[in-house]
């Protein structure tokens, strides 16, 4: 994976909606730019509740995406 790309993994209902568990995208500086791209590319996600984790930590609001970060799209949890 090039340092100028960004790896996005998706789970549960989000993986179903975007029809893949993994995306490799051009680098994006923060979660707002990423969301803009996702909503454009997968309009269905606009009506779907999900969170973004960066390097396994929940990102709240606009959050910078470090180069080489692992970005995850997480629908509401339903363990237990």
């Amino acid at each position: 994976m090039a340092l100028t790309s960004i790896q996005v993994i998706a789970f549960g209902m989000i993986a179903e909606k975007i029809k893949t568990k993994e995306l490799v995208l051009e680098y994006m500086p923060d979660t707002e730019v990423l969301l803009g791209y996702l909503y454009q590319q997968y309009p269905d996600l606009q009506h779907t509740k999900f969170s973004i984790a960066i390097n396994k930590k929940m990102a709240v609001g606009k959050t910078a995406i470090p180069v080489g970060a692992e970005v995850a799209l997480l629908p509401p949890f339903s363990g237990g």
Partner: protein
Amino acid sequence: METKRSPKNIFVQGPISPESIAKSIANHSTKTDIGGHSIFLGQVRADEKEGGKVTAIEYTAYEDMALEKAFEIREAIFAKYPLSCMHIYHSLGEVKVGEICLFVFTSSKHRKAAIDACEELVERIKKEVPVWGKELIDNDGSVWKENL
């Protein structure tokens, strides 16, 4: 190099068997400072859904993050309550109706700490650990669960 306690695996493939729960309980008989154990078990319900009845739940997880999160919760609960032991097991893959998918087990000298810690653990696991349950319906459909 950073040294730290590393996350323990909490995942079990398929259902959690009553025998493994018995074994876990029996393992504590040598810890003679324990006076009370509190256990919570999640069991898969045959809920009625549009179009049919739930027959199983298929669990998936963001495993690396789930283990980190479970570890973080574990450390926080150990810091908050005077516990002797704490165990968390969660199923991955298919768990049929009537089977056990979550096993949370706390032990302490006096009952109050074990009981309170167990309840808090269950709440935090359901809310904070990235695990997803897809309810499989008997009409071959499915519904993603959402914790309340």
